[in-house]
């Protein structure tokens, strides 16, 4: 099988090694596009493509969600001297699937005096918000649902929409704990959205573009976290902190604060509606991590060290998709590590952290970065 592909590809472009061609998804997507165009009218082509992408993202969504739940449980178990899930399947890998079935079959408990429409709408808003954000993320070269020229802005804007679902859930549940949780979440997201934006702007200044594919392409000879040295690193840390807060994860999980508010905004949800919140939390984490990977760690770009040709070749050999996933999971692991180490903050401390520490540091950081870019002091 392999030699054939090599033969096929080397004929088209002799200068590039074969694996670079294989790892480029652009020809594949273009081929699908053109063959669809040949078969049907442009309108139906678009519809079919949308359907295909929708189904693919849905599948990816479910897989990532299930895997992340499993990974989180394993990671936290190992940090806590436990084994974690180990009953269903080898090493418990089917545990989350079993959980999924459990959640699917569970009764949806109707809540007395709850605002029924909003109560049912809330989980969908949360999940749609995270669903939309996935569309703009470049998984590998050419593996892109949509390449907006304001990709970064789009992802941040859309992923922040989930808080509306959280607010609605808290409000409509007719539960006092839920309401407190929702209000906390609102205050939290409004504050931390600012830091997320500013941290990314630091890099946008360097890249000179908000298009995600351009940002990734600009990191061909070095990731931004290395290129932008000190300010980029600070921005990365701030991004990590504030994005953890944005996804309502520990130590910033005040909205659900299980020791204070039992389960916060999703106290009253059960069955699949609860699963939506649960899944959305993990997908949000994935999205945030993939933005961090794309913007700071070079997306699907392999790790290159300037003059080491051999080393760079070996790195090139690893498929970009693996690079991308690896970086994303590294960031996710960092976030899990935070969650399972630190105690939770209080709501006023959370806001103090944002307005007194992160925001001023961030503003100064943007300034420094602009200056560095202006003087050309970056690598």
């Amino acid at each position, binding site marked *: 099988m392999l030699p054939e592909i090599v033969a096929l590809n080397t004929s088209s472009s002799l200068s590039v090694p074969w694996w670079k061609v294989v790892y480029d998804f652009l020809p594949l997507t273009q081929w699908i596009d053109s063959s669809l165009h040949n078969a049907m009218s442009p309108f139906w082509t678009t519809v079919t493509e949308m359907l295909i992408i929708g189904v693919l993202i849905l599948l990816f969504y479910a897989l990532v969600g299930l895997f992340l739940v499993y990974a989180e449980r394993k990671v936290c178990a*190992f*940090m806590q*001297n*436990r*084994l974690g899930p180990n009953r269903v399947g080898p090493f418990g890998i089917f545990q989350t699937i079993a959980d999924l079935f459990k959640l699917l079959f569970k009764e949806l408990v109707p809540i007395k005096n709850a605002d029924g429409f909003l109560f049912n709408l809330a989980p969908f808003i949360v999940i749609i918000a995270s669903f939309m954000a996935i569309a703009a993320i470049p998984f590998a070269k050419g593996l892109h649902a949509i390449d907006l020229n304001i990709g970064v802005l789009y992802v941040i804007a859309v992923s922040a929409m989930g808080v509306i679902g959280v607010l609605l859930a808290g409000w409509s549940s007719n539960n006092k704990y839920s309401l407190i949780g929702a209000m906390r979440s609102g205050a939290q997201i409004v504050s931390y959205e600012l830091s997320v934006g500013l941290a990314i702007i630091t890099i946008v200044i360097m890249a000179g573009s908000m298009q995600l594919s351009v940002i990734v392409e600009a990191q061909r000879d070095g990731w931004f976290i290395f290129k932008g040295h000190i300010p980029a690193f600070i921005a990365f840390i701030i991004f990590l902190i504030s994005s953890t807060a944005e996804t309502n994860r520990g130590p910033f999980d005040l909205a659900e604060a299980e020791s204070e508010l039992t389960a916060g905004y999703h106290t009253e949800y059960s069955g699949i509606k609860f699963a939506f919140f649960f899944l959305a939390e993990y997908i949000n984490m994935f999205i945030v991590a993939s933005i961090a990977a794309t913007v700071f760690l070079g997306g699907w770009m392999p790790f290159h060290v300037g003059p080491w040709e051999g080393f760079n070749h070996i790195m090139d050999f690893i498929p970009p998709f693996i690079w991308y996933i690896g970086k994303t999971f590294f960031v996710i692991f960092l976030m899990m*590590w*935070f969650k399972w*180490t*630190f105690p939770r903050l209080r709501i006023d401390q959370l806001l103090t952290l944002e307005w007194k520490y992160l925001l001023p*540091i961030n503003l100064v950081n943007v300034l420094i970065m602009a200056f560095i870019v202006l003087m050309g002091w970056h690598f």
Partner: protein
Amino acid sequence: MRSIINYLKEIILGVWSLLKGMKVTGSYFFRPSTIVTQKYPSNRKDLVMFERFKGEVVMPHNEKNEHKCTGCGICELNCPNGTIEVISKTIITEDGKKKRAIDKHIYRLGMCTFCALCVKTCPSNALAFSQKFEHAVFNRAHLIKTLNKPGSQLMKGVE
């Protein structure tokens, strides 16, 4: 100026304390040998309880189906919860004397608090604790046990 230095110092010390915490959890994450979880139902075979473990009260019988219980009822008196009930009968011994012996030694596991007073106060050491700890049954009536085996007799030489 001093306030700025303090501000930065605060941040650095804070981050350092957080990193120290992460070191602890991180080091355990990369040392799976420290895991303490026992895979309980699958390690049943080599799971040994300590010999003093108070699982449930039993009446040891020897191979001739003999026990040491004389039916004196001291255990029943000492039990704080009414867990034990001794039903005695009178038997006629070989030399023709009437003698008290147990008919049934009833033990209600569901009420037992494992205070060990019955085992400790038994004058003839007829009772003991077993190491069995899997007591779950589907019917509560199964928790009422008769400790003396059917057809068992008093061990010779025990008064």
